[in-house]
């Protein structure tokens, strides 16, 4: 089979599964699960075949279908297959497959219809995400972009009977919409100014957008707003921690590996265009590096293991953005590639721990490594990869980002990212030491054990990728050079490697020391610097700020608009209605219903007519 067929197969297999489950077999939960897993397995196979044959792909494969016919500037719906989209497709398929298999064990207490619903959403999500990856048109990408947003909403709110979950789902939806408004505005501007939304055309003619000057930067910044929302960059990051109300496998798939990476992918996809605008790149770099630092500080004080990971995800997405902003497609995208595996692994491991302990708090766990060795060891692999220790995958990608950011003239982003290396290692070490080492802190933790086969399988599968994905660096670098090659060399100072590994080790060891032997240090620190601690716990008051804006400004505005509508707009309409009715009431008395009265009217009219016509005399 050729690439095009394979891509269509991997795209539509989850789509078919979604309809089958949604329409016919939703009631039989297990069966739906198998259908969905089979579908995503087909996708995985197809995308693996494409990935393995990547060197045979000389030219990007493009297949367009006319979507919106117009006299000029028609819009096509199509697929765009090149090295970047195939690698991304593989990531999506692999993580989706691992997570769906894992869910078999994790969701075992669900009722069958609910399990069917779960897998239907999963299939729809996989389809939408693949559509986003393969889109050959920014508008098409936007459609799938919103579809994954809907799936995210549905899956965060999967436990819709829990008020927090329903609220978190809404919050995620609205906050990402805030970014999407910018995205669609940018798209419309681009379309009106440029008349073409074709990705392939855009990235091969980046100069045309450059011709628009400042407006071009504005358009790109607006498009980037979408990425800020979707990839949870500051200041729209507030939805992601709350999104952890969803089932843990959902967090692993959507809120760690794939959907939140969509923003990064979008920037990577349009990277040749972004590169033409150094000011926009600077915004991406500074925003990304600041987000990385900012989220990492909040991760330190979280007690909920999933929230630690959520902040870590925000922070790592910031890393990716910083890598892209520093001018390296490879650095940013490669980190996406490795991060997808180890972060999904961490989430699944956290899920296994939660499943065993029946609590999200790390302080209810403890000693899990001994009781659940597979979970403990795979989680440790994830932690080490995230901390960037060699030879795990995170080391290579994080290293690459640091190199490029270091080469940037302004050193501020580099300082942010370097501190973050330490913070990352520290908070992951903290979570690991508290949850997996030491002695159990609750009854459930004492009886904890490894999960069943399906969950273990996914953990091990992802752990293998988390370990070895880093060695794929050279190939990915090679493949991405075809997509975009920037001239000019960067210096690779060797001290950077020692610095990042040293900081990572230092973070892990210090957290190990503090949380396993000297807990009083942490307690003292939190009381001594209670102001900072409180600020971190309150998430820098950004959620409060959003809420304040909502309550005090937006609601006030809506209240005024409501008053205006009810009293002024409706008042005018009601007055018209009232006077019409009054005039009607007085006119109806003419209609007596007696024939002769009408005849009198006719006669009078006739006489009047005569008078008017012959009125001369």
């Amino acid at each position, binding site marked *: 089979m050729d690439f095009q067929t394979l891509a269509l197969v991997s795209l539509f297999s989850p789509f078919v599964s979604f309809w089958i489950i949604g329409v016919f077999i939703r009631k039989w939960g297990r069966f739906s699960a198998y259908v969905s897993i089979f579908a995503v397995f087909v996708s995985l196979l197809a995308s693996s075949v494409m990935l393995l044959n990547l060197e045979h792909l000389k030219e990007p494969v493009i297949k367009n279908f006319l979507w919106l016919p117009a006299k000029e500037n028609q819009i096509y719906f199509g697929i765009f297959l090149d090295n970047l989209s195939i690698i991304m497709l593989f990531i999506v398929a692999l993580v989706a497959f691992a997570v769906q298999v894992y869910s078999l064990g994790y969701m075992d207490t669900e009722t069958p219809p609910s399990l069917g619903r779960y897998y239907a959403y999963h299939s729809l999500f996989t389809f939408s995400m693949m559509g986003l990856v393969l889109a050959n048109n920014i508008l098409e990408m936007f459609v799938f972009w919103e579809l994954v947003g809907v799936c995210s909403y549905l899956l965060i709110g999967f436990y819709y009977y829990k008020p927090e979950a329903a609220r978190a789902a809404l919050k995620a939806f609205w906050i990402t919409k805030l970014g999407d408004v910018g995205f669609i505005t940018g798209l419309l501007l681009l379309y009106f100014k440029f008349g073409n939304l074709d990705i392939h055309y855009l990235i091969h003619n980046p100069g045309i957008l450059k011709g628009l000057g400042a407006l071009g930067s504005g358009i790109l910044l607006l498009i980037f707003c979408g990425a800020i929302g979707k990839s949870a960059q500051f200041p729209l990051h507030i939805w992601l921690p709350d999104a952890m109300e969803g089932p843990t496998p959902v967090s692993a798939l959507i809120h760690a590996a794939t959907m939140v990476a969509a923003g990064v992918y979008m920037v990577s996809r349009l990277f040749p265009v972004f590169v033409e605008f150094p000011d926009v790149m600077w915004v991406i770099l500074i925003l990304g590096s600041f987000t990385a630092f900012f989220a990492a500080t909040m991760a330190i004080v979280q007690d909920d293991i999933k929230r630690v990971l959520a902040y870590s995800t925000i922070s790592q997405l910031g890393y990716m953005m910083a890598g892209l902003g520093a001018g390296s497609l490879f650095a940013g995208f490669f980190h996406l590639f490795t991060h997808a595996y180890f972060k999904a692994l961490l989430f699944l491991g956290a899920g296994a721990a939660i499943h065993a302990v029946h609590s999200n708090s790390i302080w209810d766990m403890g000693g899990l490594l001994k009781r659940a060795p597979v979970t403990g060891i795979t989680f440790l692999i994830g932690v080490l990869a995230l901390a960037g220790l060699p030879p795990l995958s995170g080391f290579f990608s994080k290293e690459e980002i640091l190199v490029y950011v270091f080469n940037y003239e302004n050193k501020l982003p580099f300082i942010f990212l370097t501190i973050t290396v330490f913070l990352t290692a520290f908070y992951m070490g903290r979570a690991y030491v508290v949850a997996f080492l030491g002695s159990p802190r609750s009854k459930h933790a004492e009886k904890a054990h490894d999960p069943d086969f399906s969950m273990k399988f996914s953990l091990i599968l992802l752990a293998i990728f988390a370990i070895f994905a880093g060695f794929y660096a050279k190939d990915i670098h090679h493949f991405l050079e075809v997509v975009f090659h920037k001239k000019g060399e960067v210096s690779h100072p060797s001290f950077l490697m020692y610095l990042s590994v040293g900081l990572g080790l230092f973070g892990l060891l210090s957290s190990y020391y503090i949380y396993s032997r000297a807990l009083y240090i942490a307690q003292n620190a939190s009381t001594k610097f209670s102001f900072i601690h409180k600020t971190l716990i309150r998430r820098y008051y950004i959620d409060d700020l959003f809420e304040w804006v909502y309550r005090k400004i937006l609601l006030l505005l809506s209240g005024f608009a409501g008053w205006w509508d009810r009293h002024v707009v409706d008042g005018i309409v009601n007055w018209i209605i009232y006077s019409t009715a009054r005039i009607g009431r007085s006119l*109806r*008395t*003419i*209609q*007596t*219903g*007696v*024939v*002769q009265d009408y*005849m*009198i009217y006719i*006669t009078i009219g006739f006489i009047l007519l005569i008078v008017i016509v012959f009125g001369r005399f």
Partner: protein
Amino acid sequence: MDLNALLLLSIILFSFGIYGVLSRRNALGILIALELIFNSANLNFGIFSKHFGNPEGILTIIFGIALTAAEVVLGFAIVILLFRLRKTSQADEVNILKG
């Protein structure tokens, strides 16, 4: 005969008709008064046909009479039905169309 005198006759006939239509309370009386109006119109056709020596006016009278006969049949039918339904033929007692 004098044209003016004939036209005056026609006008008198027409005025009687109008008066009858407006003042009679019985539906049959109204119909008969209507006939007077028609006949005054027919008379006008005849007068002018004679005056101008054009036979088409006479033809129109024949058509008019046929039409009137048909109309009267229809009118009587309505009055009879009305009487069956409402037990009355007084026009002012029937006012179901009152607004």
